[in-house]
């Protein structure tokens, strides 16, 4: 029984002489491969050449500083809560007198660590952050590890360098 009348019976029939000899098909196939032989490769020589991956690519994490060079992170822990891979951990510390130019809020992260083997680069930490402190940069990837000691990234690798500030397309 047919549910609808949309099915079509295909009549394949016997192959014609040209089809049975395969020669036209072989010549056509050879022409196709020859065309590709002279066309430009679609792959690139990766470590030397890199592609632009778009303005919202989620790569290396960065802890932003404000214009005066004070860290924005206040160690609220919302990124760690949002993280589905539980890659983020931190230790909070109260800001002392005289540290106002170093830390923007009264509480800051003394230790801020991301386990790059756990991180899945989903960007939920970026969304969760109320202080606009953590971002996944679009222009840099986390490099390949060779030992397990390199896996956990501390503040030394994450905090923004004021000489090379990270700017995203669309930011002023």
């Amino acid at each position, binding site marked *: 029984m047919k549910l609808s009348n949309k099915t079509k019976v295909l009549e394949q029939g*016997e192959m014609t002489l040209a089809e049975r000899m395969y020669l036209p098909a072989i010549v056509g196939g050879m022409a196709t491969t020859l065309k590709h*032989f002279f066309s430009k*490769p679609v792959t690139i020589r990766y470590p030397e050449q890199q592609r632009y991956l778009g303005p919202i690519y989620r790569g290396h994490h960065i802890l932003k500083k404000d214009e005066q060079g004070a860290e924005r992170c206040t160690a609220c822990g919302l990124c760690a809560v949002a993280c589905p891979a539980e890659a983020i951990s931190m230790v909070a510390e109260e800001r002392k007198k005289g540290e106002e130019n170093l830390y923007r809020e009264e509480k800051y992260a003394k230790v801020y660590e991301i386990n790059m083997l756990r991180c899945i680069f989903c960007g939920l930490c970026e969304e969760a952050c109320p202080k606009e402190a953590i971002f996944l940069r679009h222009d840099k990837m986390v490099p390949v590890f060779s030992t397990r000691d390199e896996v956990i990234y501390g503040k030394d690798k994450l905090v923004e360098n004021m000489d090379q500030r990270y700017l995203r397309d669309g930011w002023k």
Partner: protein
Amino acid sequence: MELMNDVFTAKAIFIGIVFAITLGIAAYSTYFERKIAAFMQDRIGPDRAGPFGILQPLADAVKMFMKEDFIPANSNKWLFIAGPCLSMLTALMTSAVVPFGDTVTVAGVTFDLQGIDVNIGILWVFGIVSLGVYGILVGGWASNNKYSLLGAIRAASQNISYELAMGMSIIAILMLSGSLSTKSIVEAQQAGHWNILSQPIGFVIFLICAFAECNRTPFDLPECETELIGGYHTEYSSMKLGFYLFAEYINMFISGAVMATLFFGGYDYPGYSFIAAQFGSNAAAFLGMGALIGKALLFVFVFMWVRWTLPRFRYDQLMGLGWTGLIPLSMFNVVVTGFGILIDQPILAGIGGVVIMFVGLVVNDALSRKKKIA
């Protein structure tokens, strides 16, 4: 006696050069195979070892030598070692009768640019190529592995089947040249009278058979991975495997050279007599050697081009094509050639043969095709 020694030395040096060229081309064929495969698949291909990856064959050789040379416990040890040696030996022996160039005079010694001009040149090629299958058969049998044995049996039956059609297509050439010597066959084709003009069908048959004889795609059933793991070289590792693969590339180059000799005028090229008159016969002969190698390399490219275009045949298709397709066609070609010699118009007969073949196919198809059942 003095002259004999000089010719002997010159020949020995020439054979050494041919040997080196053959090995070098075979080594670089592996690189170009991978490069051509890459280009045909819109990739870049190996480019890490040296500029553009040109040191890749060296890296591959180092890899092959460094690997463990494993001999299975239940194999027949001596035959297991003899297999790749036989393959390599026969692959390298074929080039002895290929005429690479005309007579040259270097340092007062006059000699042919050819290993040895025997009056059974083509039979020599056939004999050695037939021996080549022993390398595969011995290796596959000695492995004591059913897949290796199946691969070896396939190789043997395939080579026997296609040698028949190949021999028949060469008979037409022999009818034209009247000699088995490769040198006379080439000399009969000088100044542009290439055999391809009068033997288009013969060339196509020979080309297809060459694919089968070299165990190249689409006829690479002896090493069909999906059915036989690695085929006859499943149990081989290290440089013994390397020898099998290397022998295949040498065979490709040599069969290209043989095809150039038989159908494309050997060392002949346009403007041969002009160069000979302007720069002397030596320069013309050496340039002819370059022309022959160039033609052979062109065939190597065709081998690779076909490999990266066509899928593998099924075994019954392979046998069907050989026995019911190519052998009758080559018999037809012999008749056409004989007719061409009779009317003294071999080129006209060659073209007529192609036309008659296609007309015959169409008529036969129209008569025998069953009506479609409505």
